């Protein structure tokens, strides 16, 4: 069943429209941030309003304008997109609270630009989530790259500029150099770019071109951060923490992964890829990233950089899960978008809270910090459990699905990769928590007195930490949505 509705468009536009009051109200901070809030809440409400329809097994479609023969600018909401949109829009509200606290406390400059670009980025993120064809998705993907550039280079110092340059070079370079020609080749072969339930390639034999195309897409959506094209993500950590948390743990990177998922499921089709033996290629490319990123994370002393490498690994997880092309793998992969998002954003929030409260960025400086900031570190602990995949957090659910998916696809090496990387995850997160709480008094760098970050920086991680636990108890919130899309597929 397909329903025509403007709701997805309105959900996207709510943040685009907010850009204008945000830029115009430069003088009054409160009114400007009120607009961010209003937009975030409207957006979330609109997205939520579509959930029952999607759960009912229907999809929402809206054709905006026709761009190229057979390829209109078209929106389509299904379970996959819904999961992603829900995550992004709910976390925008939380992040807005957080960024207000963070930006005010650290007296950042150019806050109007910051909030305006943020709203623009959310517009593009939802656009990607709701795209009905590859071209629409590509358009929003590029808008996202451009709108986040000012956020990355926000500090305007030399480091930020280099980070920004790297960011654009990688993202634009890959999307123009790889994704665009791949998309054109597909268009020339099939004459369409709409995501089909079983792909659109059925009946077209590509021969040796197929692995090339698959790799062009995987690396072309550079936001997915597959190694060796991952260097932009640690570089982008120069951005203010709210940016890192929402965009580089959730929106931007997940957009990359989401695009790869769409290509695998909607363009090639899982069956087609299995049939042509592409599964090992995808899985091993992603698996390599999983292990390498986890190992590199071990050596990072900068907390945000360690989180960044952890993110790279987790993104590759998702691609690996979907790349298995088995039912459970795909469900697990898409669900992991949500599960990982809540876990990882908690961690970033905590890192930001520590920075706001103490000005410390490095892990070696955080010995004993649990005594000073117990709530923050407790949230950090829960977040890291979710990323590791340990009960009672949502991360476990999706990881189990992916593991079963690997077994379903008879890919034993992938099972091993999952297990090893979970172990590595534990290796690079738990010592931080351990040292923060259980160090001897002589080692502790902080006094016992509790001195947390401002309230606006504490509430968001607590909320997201609670959500990760809630997702363990009620995983069906996410799983049902994903499976509704699988039913369509």
């Amino acid at each position, binding site marked *: 069943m397909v329903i025509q509705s403007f709701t997805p468009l309105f959900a996207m536009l709510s943040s685009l429209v907010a850009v204008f009051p945000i830029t115009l109200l430069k003088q009054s901070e409160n009114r400007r941030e009120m607009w961010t809030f209003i937009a975030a809440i409207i957006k979330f409400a609109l997205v939520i309003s579509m959930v029952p329809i999607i759960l009912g097994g229907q999809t929402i479609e809206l054709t905006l304008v026709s*761009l*190229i*023969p057979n390829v209109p600018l078209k929106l389509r909401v299904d379970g996959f997109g819904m999961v992603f949109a829900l995550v992004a829009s709910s976390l925008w509200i939380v992040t807005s609270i957080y960024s207000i606290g963070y930006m005010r406390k650290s007296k950042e400059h150019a806050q109007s630009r910051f909030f305006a670009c943020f709203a623009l980025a959310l517009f593009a993120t939802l656009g990607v989530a709701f795209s009905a064809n590859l071209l629409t998705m590509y358009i929003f993907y590029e808008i996202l790259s451009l709108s986040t550039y000012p956020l990355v280079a926000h500090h305007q110092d030399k480091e930020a500029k280099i980070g920004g340059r790297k960011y654009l070079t990688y993202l634009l*370079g890959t999307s*123009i150099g790889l994704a665009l020609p791949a998309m*054109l080749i597909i268009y020339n072969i099939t004459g369409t770019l709409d995501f089909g339930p079983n792909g659109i390639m059925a009946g077209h034999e590509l021969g040796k071109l197929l692995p090339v195309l698959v790799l062009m897409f995987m690396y072309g959506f550079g936001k997915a951060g597959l190694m060796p094209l991952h260097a932009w993500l640690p570089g982008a950590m120069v951005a203010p923490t709210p940016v890192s948390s929402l965009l580089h743990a959730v929106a931007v990177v997940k957009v990359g992964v989401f695009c790869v998922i769409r290509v695998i499921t909607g363009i090639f089709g899982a069956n087609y890829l299995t049939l042509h033996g592409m599964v090992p290629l995808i899985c091993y490319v992603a698996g390599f990233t999983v292990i390498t990123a986890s190992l590199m994370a071990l050596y990072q002393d900068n907390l945000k950089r360690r989180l960044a490498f952890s993110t790279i690994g987790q993104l590759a997880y998702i691609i690996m899960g979907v790349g298995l092309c088995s039912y459970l793998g795909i469900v697990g992969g898409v669900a992991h978008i949500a599960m990982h998002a809540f876990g990882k954003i908690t961690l970033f929030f905590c890192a930001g809270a520590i920075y706001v409260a103490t000005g410390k960025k490095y892990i070696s400086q955080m010995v004993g910090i649990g005594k000073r900031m117990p709530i923050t570190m407790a949230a950090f602990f829960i977040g890291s459990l979710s990323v590791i995949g340990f009960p009672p957090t949502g991360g476990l659910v999706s990881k189990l699905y992916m593991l079963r998916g690997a077994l379903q696809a008879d890919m034993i090496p992938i099972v091993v990769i999952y297990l090893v990387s979970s172990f590595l995850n534990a290796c690079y997160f738990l010592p931080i928590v351990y040292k923060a709480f259980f160090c001897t008094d002589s080692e502790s760098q902080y006094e016992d007195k509790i001195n947390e970050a401002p309230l606006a920086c504490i509430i968001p991680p607590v909320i997201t930490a609670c959500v990760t636990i809630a997702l363990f108890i009620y995983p069906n919130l996410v799983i049902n949505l994903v499976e509704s899309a699988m039913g369509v597929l």
Partner: protein
Amino acid sequence: MNIAAQLPVIVLVLPLLSAFAVTLVSLFNKKLAWPLTVLTMTATFLATTGTLCSVIHNGAIRYRVANWAPPFGIELVIDHLSALVAVVISIVALLVAIFAKETIQKDIPNRVGQFYTLFILCTVGLLGETLTGDAFNLYVLIEITSLTSYALLAFGGSRAYFSTFNYLILGTIGACLYLLGVGYLYIKTGSLNMIDIATLIPALSGSSAIFTAFILILVGLWIKMAFFPFHGWLPNAYTHATSTVSAFAAPLMTKVTVYMSIRLMYFVFGPDYAFSQFTGPVNIVWLAVIAILVGSYYALVQTDIKRMLTYIIIAEVGYMVGGMWLGNAIGLTGTIYHIAADAIMTACLFLALGSIAYKLGSTKISDMAGIFKKMPVTFCAFLVGAAGMIGIPPTAGFFSKWFLISGGIQAGQWAFVVALLVSSLVNAILFFRIIEVGFFGADDEDEHDAVVVQRNEAPLSMLLPTVTAAALVILLGLSTSKVTSLLIENIVGSLF
């Protein structure tokens, strides 16, 4: 008078008459020249739009000037292609006419009338080139545009004279080669009417004279459009001209010449003839690839934005020539679409740059520090134009690349595909260099030490056309499907 039937010629006559009116009026009151010019351009724009609508509804128009039947008299041929190009010309001319007010008033207060007259006549020449159906008449109109543009470009300060002189010499060689080509055609066919010649050529396809004519016409037009290896004159001539003139010449001159070469290659010689002559090792697409790479390379090493843009134009000419020589429908679609897209994008960039130069007095990249805070609206318009040049959707530039790359893939011209992608990436580097400086200041200074810049936006008469051009870049992108299905498919469909 039946206005609907006379519309094709009104497009030309209206600006022509008012050009002389501007001369005469400005002898008595110089202040009237600008409003009269804007009024003329608006009317011309309406007339071209009307013609376009009429072509869409009723099909191509063949207008007999002086009511002589072709091939004895001269006829105007307005099909979907020429109507489209005419509309693009009139839009850009209108925008530049509005834009011109402040700069011209500042630079040459006592020669305003002459400037606007030459400006309007140049537009008439361009419009005439698109509408005419006569090979020799095209030569006359080429010369009108050339002569007016020599005069307009030369007026731009001390360095402009020498660069314009080079343009004059090369431009004249180009036009003369074209004229000679027409002579060769005339000797063999005895006709000057394009449609008539097209019917005579198939019988003469083995003739070496026709082949020479083909080469002469092509090379002549290549010189005029600054196609590699004849591109040497363009960067200097456009860089040293005043911003208003380069904002007019840069978007239109090369693009209309590309249009002419499509007209002659596809509608006079015919695709069959053209492609049968160039098969095997002699392939024009390879020249286009070199043009794109050379243009992109030289654009990279420039420190002046205006000069950089001129090299981008050379690369863009490579796009279009390559697209039309791919020999498939989608490649030609890309070229035709790119004529419109590139004209508007280039206009947008040059207009924005003109406003910046007006306020800043410089177009060097290093002087752009903090320009975003100083002129936010202008700079945003510049960004849109830049996004178009890079090919970021949904700007028009993306779709022209889409068609061109598709065409390259279909024709198996992988070098062309790679060259297009490389040039996109190079453009990305070029423009982000500027954007970085514009947003965040130059490399060596720290933002917090930088002087607080006051907002100092360009006057409304400059802002309005700049913003309009930026909006058009996006609007054209979003209406790609309309443009292709209503206009370009009609043209391309009749050829392939």
